[in-house]
Structure formats: C-alpha cells, structure tokens
C-alpha cells in the first residue's frame, strides 16, 4: 500500500480546545481523511476525528500465544526429544520447571510484536518526512486536510479554519 504523498490544506492553532473544535467541524463537513498533528495526545481527539480503536492488541495477543507455544516447544523438545537427560530423577517433561521460560518468551514475543505492529500501522520509520511547522512537536496544533478528501474545498475550508481562530492556514504541496 505505497501511498504517494498528497498535498492539501493545513491550519495551525495555538490552543488545544480550538483544534478539537476544528476537528469536530471537519468531520461534520463530511471530511474523513483529515488528520490532526499535535505535540501530545489530545484528550477526545479520537472521538472528534472518528478514529477507531487501535488494532495493536490483537497482534499482541497473537504474539503472546506464539511466544508461549515457542517456549513450550523448545523446552519440551530439547529436554525430552532431542537429547533426553535424566536430571535429578525429574520427569523428562517437567512442566512446572518450564513455566518461567514460557512466561518470559510470552512477554518477549508479545512486546516485540506489538512494537512491530505499531511501526507498520504508523508507517515508521519514515525518512525525513515533510513537517507542516516545526513547532507542532512543541506548542502548536494543526489540522491537515488532504486534497483528495471527499468534499475538499480549499476556499471554504480556509474560511472555516479562520473563523475557528486558526493562527495560520497553509497550502502544502505534499505531506
């Protein structure tokens, strides 16, 4: 799913509340592909934009199951199949003793697969991406509407954002 960078309209705000209003407004106007750029996760932004709950937990669950099975498989196969050695008269498949290993591998696989899923879903790492404004990672907030969004009308949007108190409205050639 290689997406070409598209152009669009970006509005920069100085206040957390204004950007929430702007996001709600965009959604009411029928836009759906727009995004907000904020220095920290803004409370209520998911609802305002209409972002669905992240799918990462499903990956974590599968990763955890795989980790646990791998742990069970290595311990049992190494100790009871590949080269069985009697240690202190314990049974070949001494399950209670294998639980720590299974547990640690469950956590390890779950954590690493979640991070991989995160990177894939966010398309990270990105090489030197275009930035709307360098202050967006510090104290400013922005709404970006791509030009291929349904009902995109740059003149109308610019007016809407200005009315909502945007400090700056920028046309981006690509983002």
């Amino acid at each position, binding site marked *: 799913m290689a997406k070409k960078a598209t152009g669009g309209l970006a509005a920069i705000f100085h206040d957390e509340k204004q950007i929430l209003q702007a996001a709600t407004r965009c959604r009411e106007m029928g836009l759906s592909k727009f995004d907000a750029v904020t220095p920290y996760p803004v409370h209520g932004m998911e609802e305002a934009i209409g972002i669905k709950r992240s799918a990462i937990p499903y990956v974590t669950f599968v990763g955890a199951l795989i980790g646990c099975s791998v742990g069970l498989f290595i311990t049992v196969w*190494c100790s009871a199949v590949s080269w069985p050695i009697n240690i202190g008269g314990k049974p070949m498949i001494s399950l209670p003793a294998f639980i720590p290993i299974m547990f640690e591998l469950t956590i390890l696989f779950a954590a690493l697969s979640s991070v991989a899923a*995160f990177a894939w879903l966010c398309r990270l790492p990105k090489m030197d991406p275009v930035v709307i404004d360098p202050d967006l990672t510090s104290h400013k907030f922005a709404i970006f509407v791509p030009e291929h969004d349904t009902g995109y009308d740059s003149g109308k949007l610019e007016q809407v954002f200005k009315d909502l108190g945007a400090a700056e409205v920028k046309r981006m050639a690509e983002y």
Partner: protein
Amino acid sequence: MIKRNKLILGHKDLKSITDDICQPVETPPGKGWLTLFLGAKTLLIFYIIILGCVIAKGMGLLGVNHPVAWGTMIITFVFWIGIGHAGTLISAILFLFRQKWRTSVARTAEAMTVFAVMTAGLFPLLHTGRPWLDFWLFPYPNQRGPLWVNFRSPLLWDVFAVSTYATVSIVFWYIGMVPDFATLKDRAKNQIRRKIYGALSLGWRGSARNWSHYEMLYLLLAGLSTPLVLSVHTIVSFDFAVAQLPGWHTTIFPPYFVAGAIFSGFAMVVTLMTLVRIGFPQFKDYITIDHMEVMNKIIMTTGMMVGYAYASEFFVAWYSGNIYERYVFFVSRAFGPYAWSYWIMICCNVLIPQVFWFKKMRRSIPVMFVVSIFVNIGMWFERYVITVTSLHRDFLPSSWGNYAWSFFDGAVLFGSFGLFLTLFLLYLRVMPAVSIAEVKPVLPVGRDDGHGGH
C-alpha cells in the same frame, strides 16, 4: 473535596516546558557536570582494567572459594537488578494505576533501569569464569549432540528473565522517547543534530492517528512490563530459594526480593533525583518536593515490608523445628562471624527509613539524600547477608570457612558505579530527562482555571 497539588510548579505554558526540558541537551555542559563526568569516567576506566584482570587471570582474584562459592559478583548482580525494578515500577505499574505524578520522574527512572540492568548483566557473565564461552547459556543448535541447556535450572531461567527484562525495558524506554526525539529534531539548529535526532525519532510527526496507536502501544508495554518486572526478581530469588541450603530455602523469597528490589530502587531514584535537581535547577518545577515525598513514603513502606520479611524468616526457622534452620538464623546469621553485616542491614533498611514518619523529614532534601544512601548500603548488605552467611557454615562443621574478601572484590563493586554513573551522566546530556509529551497533558492538574485534571 481534597485539593490537588500542582504537578508542575511555576507559570508554565507548552513552549516553556519544551524549552526547559530541552535546555540540558542543547547547551554545552557546565563545570559541575564535567567534574562528575570526569570522576565517573575515571572510575569506569579503573573498572575496565579490573575486569580485564579478572578475565585474564581468572575468578581466583576474587574471594570466592569453598565453601563461599558465591560472592561479590552475585551479590552485586542482585543489587543492581534490584535497583532497576523501581524504574519499571514507576514507568509501568504506576502508569496502569493512573498515578499522574509519575510522568515527570518516569523517563529518568526508566533510564536508571536500563543502565542498572546493563551494569548487573555483566556480573553473572563474568562469574561463569570463562566469559568468552557465555553463548553456551543460550539454547542454540550445536555439534555436540546437540547438547542443550538445562531448562530445569533456575540459573537458566535467570538468563531468560534478565535478557527479556533488558530487551523490553530498552524498547519501552525508547518508544517513550520517540515523540521527544521528534521535538529535539524540530528544534535543531544544526544539520548533524537534526540528522541524529531525526533518525532516532523514526520520522515521528505526531498525527492523531499515530498518537492513537502510540497510546495503545504504551499501555500494552506497561501491561506487559508489570508482570515481567515481578517475574524477574522472583526468578532471581529462585536462584537461592530452589537450593536446599538453610537460609536460602524459603518460600518467602519471591515477594521478599521484589519488595526489597522496589525499596532499593526507589532509594536510588531519590539519590539520583536529588542530584538532578541540583544539577539542572529548572527541573525543580517538574520533579517537585511532592514527588520526592511520595517516593519517600514508598521507601518507608517497602522498608517495613522488608523488615517484616526479616522477622518472618526468623519465626519460620524457629517454627519449623529444624535444627539447621534454627542454627543458621539464630546463631550464625544474627550472632556469628558475620553478625556485623546483619546488623548493618537491619539499621540501614529497617531503622533509618523510620525517620520518614515525620513530614518534615520526608520533605527535606538533605535528609532524604542521606537516608537513600543508607538504604542503598543496607540493600547491598542484605544480599551479602543472604549469600555469604548462608554459605559459610553448612551442614558439616569440618567444611566451614569464611569469605576471603580481596582487593578485587571491592574493586568490582566500586567500579560498577563508574559504569552506571558514566551512562547516566551521558544520558542526562543527550536525551530529554523528563518526558516532554507526557508532562504537557498533566499541566492543568491542580490549577484553578476550570479544566484542571480529569
């Protein structure tokens, strides 16, 4: 309604928070930092030389011998691993409990975890005696059979626990820093700085869709780290508890070790935070006296839990009716040749933290600094007591013997602080020491402007 205290002092806005936290990374270091760094680095070089000697000449340089076959290296390993636990407790467990005060100390505590685990990890690797064969610890396909590792051994569980802990802690720490690296990149004035922080930030731009995934990932990693951190010290305690030796063979070890780990870790956090507050005065608005007070309360609580465990060990030894158990605790440990170490431990871990009953003491920086140092000493001695006093007199009086402490024992212990402090001081200069993105949402907490906290 109980009034909430402000989590961030002073009249801050979003921009001044960014400026404050980025300042140490963006300005040349001052004299104080340089002095500390030169000291730490000299100690690190000394440590490298000592470890070189130990590797070249062998473990015989240290005092370990029959019957005390586990000595400084194992004691100091458990000590450093324990230190690491407080970082994960602050960053993961307090996150799950929605303790908002954690945000300003989490980053540095997590860094402490990573460096403490790195420092700790060296010890068992060297204690094997032939560190160049340490890859034997992992089950890899080989041409000797294949001959596998013994999965029933607690020492092998430790290999898995500590390496998983190190990996997950580093990942958790790094993921937390990604948005802050993007901030540093966007503020960068020169190209090299921009490139380095740009690469570290992975091209993070802070879009709402990415934040949604990011918050979910952070929650998941916190949820995974929580059982992990409890399992790690549990497994470390199994190294002792699974053995048959009186003094080690007790079921109380896992919770006792975890409480002790949190105790010592918080003491180290307090030690480091008092120093960070002196070195970077602008952080006093983020790491406030309220934060320090809360941590001191945790120190006192866990200190009493540890004290309870000490008492419980004696009770169970008496209640078991077993003469060897009774001998180890009532004769050998409390009144034997190592009684001094036992009483140092009791003083430092149980008695001294009691000063925190008084609010004035909890909120006094010099007092908490001194107490935290005593706790660190006491917790090192706790592991010394467990390891050495249990080993030095076993079932056969003919094989009794004392630990032959040598110069190299002291040198590896003190040298390890060189490694830890060098890493920590470098961290303070190249990474944002307070989480920029996490602190901003707690800015309104305790402020009377109508939308404070939710």
